[in-house]
């Protein structure tokens, strides 16, 4: 009797697993059936993805995600992700699309499908007290430097410049630790730091170093979703062509970046 039960359970498991894989085969169908596009975005990365006072996710990347949903004719749902879990969310099918300030790197392309061309670009810099007078990356040697768990430049910053990385889960904790004096600096994307230095609350802080590792950002879909990736490629080209990225930068108070300008020139 028990054995029979086991067989039934095993069979139903296999069947549901098979059903799962066929459902994965074309996510575009699933999205249209569901009527909602589920997008992983940052919720702590002003102005690219952050929370407004009422708790909604807003910013440049949610706006881009909305464009995709509009094109598909469905609603959009935002799932906040962080650097250390965003690729797993995509792999596990918790999100259909990820637009979450992710630097495009070859080893990531083995895990998720990143359509070309890139939609954005940024580099690495630090936020530090003006009074420390840091001028070059080597000044960080031996000092504790706050970071975000999962950021690829943590290793480079400690390996090449001898900084002791103190990595936190989210940016709120890292900023708080920097303010409390637990770290000499906070190593992060220059695009986010620029926004912070314009904030009156951070008037004593500066972005003193030369930006390094200027690297493109990639949005991503799950591996094997070639149709969706193709659609996203066309979409990104369109964003560059129409100047949508430049428009969103202006809307959210970022100075137009050289990358966005160059891409607009190239595709226009």
């Amino acid at each position, binding site marked *: 009797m028990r054995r029979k039960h086991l067989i039934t359970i095993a069979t139903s498991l296999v069947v549901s697993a098979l059903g799962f894989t066929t459902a994965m085969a074309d996510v575009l169908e699933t999205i249209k059936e569901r009527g909602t596009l589920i997008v992983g975005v940052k919720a702590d990365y002003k102005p690219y993805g952050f929370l407004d006072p009422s708790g909604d996710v807003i910013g440049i990347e949610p706006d881009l995600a909305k464009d995709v949903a509009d094109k598909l004719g469905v609603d959009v749902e935002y799932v906040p992700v962080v*650097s*250390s879990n965003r*690729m*797993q969310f995509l792999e596990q099918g918790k999100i259909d699309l990820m637009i979450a300030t992710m630097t495009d790197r070859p*080893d*990531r392309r*083995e*895990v998720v499908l990143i359509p070309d061309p890139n939609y954005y670009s940024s580099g690495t810099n630090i936020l530090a*007290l003006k*009074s*420390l007078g840091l001028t070059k990356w080597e000044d960080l040697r*031996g*000092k504790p430097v*706050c970071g975000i*768990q*999962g*950021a*690829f430049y*943590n*290793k480079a910053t400690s*390996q090449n410049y001898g900084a002791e*990385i*103190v*990595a*936190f*889960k989210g940016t709120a*904790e890292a900023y*708080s*630790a920097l*303010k*409390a*004096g*637990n770290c*000499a600096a906070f190593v992060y994307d220059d695009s986010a730091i620029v926004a912070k230095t314009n904030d009156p609350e951070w008037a004593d802080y500066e972005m003193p170093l030369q930006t390094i590792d200027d690297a493109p950002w990639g949005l991503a879909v799950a591996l094997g979703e070639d149709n969706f990736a193709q659609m996203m490629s066309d979409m990104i080209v369109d964003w560059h062509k129409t100047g949508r990225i430049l428009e969103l930068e202006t809307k959210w108070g970022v100075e137009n970046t050289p990358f966005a300008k160059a891409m607009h020139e190239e595709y226009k």
Partner: protein
Amino acid sequence: MDVIFEWFRVLYQETGINLPFLYDEYDRNRMVDGFLTTIRLSLVCLFFSVIIGVTGAWLQGSAFKWTRRIVNGYIQLFRNTPPLVQLYFFYFAIGTLLPRVENDWGGQSPILGSFAWAAISLSFFAGAFNVEIFRSGIEAVPRSTVEAAEALGFSKLQIYRDITLPLAFRVVLPALNNNLVNLVKTTTLAYAIAVPEMLYEANQIWSDNVNVTEMMIFLLLAYFVLVGVLVGAMNRWERAMKIPGYG
């Protein structure tokens, strides 16, 4: 040694099983540091939580009403709130309120760093449980034993130190064992305030190498071995303390 390490690089190239903390020197040092930090944090917390447990249980029997009330308040506060919340509370709330000191790099930083706060908060957390564990042991000592000691003219402290506690210890060991095992596992929470212990370093490594599965398996085994050593030691101690005919 290098041959073995290189074998793991080949293993990665051939099979895709990526264990960078074995073949990459930088990652290996990180993992070793993480392992040592976990052990250091565990030992510090084990020591202080037992001290808190023994002292707390003694104070619970105090003749002063307010001493008993404070001890009970402490137990309620630390036993009934999540350890992660306590860690954040100590590090981000209390830590920033404390006076600052001049640091090596010319800035002002809080007196206590993340390791110190993790040690304090986890010791208090496990200590609250330990007080109750020791109380259970003390209450298991027959009243007549204590009365006999009183009749012989022992002082209150002497009775606790030389009679009640040694007998209670044997009774509480299984429960204490449980709580200390839990404490070692709870040290993983310290990664939330950036204490570079094992989980934290593993997280850095899997973020750099996208090898979450391998690191998860490794972590599970590493903690299994670590806690196994503790349990082995505690069981030996339990056997060594055994009194024939008692408990």
